[in-house]
């Protein structure tokens, strides 16, 4: 599916009108599912994710059979179990996915072990599990990055202690190896069209994952761009959490400056 990227060089505007270092429109919300222990809804452009946290509760092997798990705090803390469900209506052509989709399993493993590095699970003990269910409602590029961000946000809502947000972002490269164009811009936060066309990487800061399909000469530039994007995403997520906190104070759910005991880390 050839996408005409040559127009980029003329106006330096991407297919959706962004500049190279612009993120897409983001929307985030905490506590979208009142019955869950923690939940969040995140939009990055047209990629829309709902994340539900159940637990920490006692380990139940039956419910984690399709999920990917990773232990926190070197096996001494709670286990993080991640399962991803992509709705059949999430993409342009309606498609049902099997349970054994290896691409999904790989993403589950990546998210689980990535989050396990930031979740402070030792306060729950090794026999408990935190279930993270990620529902993809709409898919338009940067899926892995968006899933990681949504999971981070929902963990904050659930009050699970973490060292920091785990935030992710994608970056692509417009230069080709053959062209050897050193000046070409890296692109931030790709959509589906750009993902199909360009080599890209997903980078998660504070830890965890990168997946690069790129040329060596441009690797550093792309990683720096993605890391910058991650900072932007982190500020956004932090804003969402602070707004929610402000709202809770206004509603009188908690007093200003009050410390919730379960979130007290040290």
């Amino acid at each position, binding site marked *: 599916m050839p996408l005409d990227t040559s127009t980029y060089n003329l106006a330096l505007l991407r297919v959706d009108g962004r500049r190279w270092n612009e993120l897409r429109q983001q929307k985030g919300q905490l506590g979208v599912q009142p019955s869950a222990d923690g939940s969040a809804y995140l939009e990055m452009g047209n990629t829309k994710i709902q994340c539900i946290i159940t637990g920490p509760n006692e380990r139940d092997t039956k419910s984690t059979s399709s999920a990917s798990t*990773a232990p926190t705090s070197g096996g001494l803390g709670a286990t993080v179990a991640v399962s991803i469900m992509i709705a059949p209506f999430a993409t342009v052509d309606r498609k049902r996915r099997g349970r054994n989709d*290896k691409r999904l*399993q*790989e993403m589950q*493993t990546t998210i689980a072990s990535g989050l396990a*590095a930031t979740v402070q699970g030792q306060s729950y003990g090794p026999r408990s599990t935190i279930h993270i269910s990620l529902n993809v409602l709409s898919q338009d590029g940067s899926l892995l990055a968006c899933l990681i961000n949504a999971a981070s946000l929902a963990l904050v809502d659930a009050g699970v202690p973490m060292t920091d947000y785990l935030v992710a972002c994608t970056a692509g490269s417009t230069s080709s190896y053959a062209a050897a164009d050193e000046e070409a811009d890296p692109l931030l936060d790709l959509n589906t069209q750009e993902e199909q066309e360009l080599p890209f*990487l997903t980078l998660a800061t504070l830890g965890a*994952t990168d997946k690069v*399909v790129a040329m060596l000469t441009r*690797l550093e530039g792309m990683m720096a761009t993605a890391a910058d994007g991650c900072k932007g995403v982190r500020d956004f997520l932090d804003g969402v959490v602070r707004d929610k906190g402000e709202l809770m104070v206004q509603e009188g759910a908690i007093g200003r400056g009050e410390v919730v005991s379960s979130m007290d880390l040290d």
Partner: protein
Amino acid sequence: MPREAEPSQNEKDFILKAVREGHRLDGRALDQFRQLDLKFGEQYGVADVTLGKTRILAKVTAEVTVPYTDRPFDGIFTITTELSPMASPAFEVNRPTETEVLLSRLLEKTVRRSNALDTESLCLVAGQKCWSIRVDLHVLSHDGNLIDASCLAVVAALRHFRKPDTGMEGDTLTVYTPAEREPVPLSWLHSPFCITFSFFGSISVGEDGEEKDIWLLDTTLLEEQLRVSSCTISMNKHGEICQVAKPGGAPVEAVTVVQCSSLALQKVKDLSDFVDQKLAEDSKHRNKGGLLAELSADNAR
């Protein structure tokens, strides 16, 4: 589900301490590979890779099938992995473990998605007939670093493989037996190799207490069980990265990843030369008395 036996606390402490001091249990340097050996079978497309005690067998087969309806001009190329209980008691038949899923996804991204094999050249009659190339990968013995060894085995097997020659006359497609016409090699575009870096936390160096990540290359199973995270870089000898995967685990400095990628290039060049040399030896061995040149169809008739 059976699990790999965990190393004892004493073993853990010993190995981690040694690694921090720059030593390994088998006396290798931190960035040194184990003894690597590559043997080809009697048939075309069988590669047997031995890396220390890890042993992997790859076999390539080809058959004529109908192409996928959404890709009428492309042939079919699949890689299947099998981690049998023979290799380690932790593996079960028909129940892919996380190791296996990650391994097959990695090979897929490295070899298939990077267009190492030109699938368009496998098309025989558009929309009706195409070659289906299948690589079966068997792990015969598991002692760590499955990814690098598997990738080498797959690439070597595919480059060694010869598919039967075909001819079109009018509307009839003829597949010639090896007796009729010498089989032809696949259309191979570049050879990607995987290099896996295993991280073991960081130590401070110098007076200013600068943190430096410790990493090992070609880890044994024991070292693999103790690592805090790993990063696999796939590239070809021209330095083109096909993929980089760091599936979670402890955080690593971005600078380290970039440094690793330049070191990986060195190692990939070594591996690439090694495979080239073994392939040349094998073709020399097969081509006794220059018979192949005589059998070739493109002589000046």
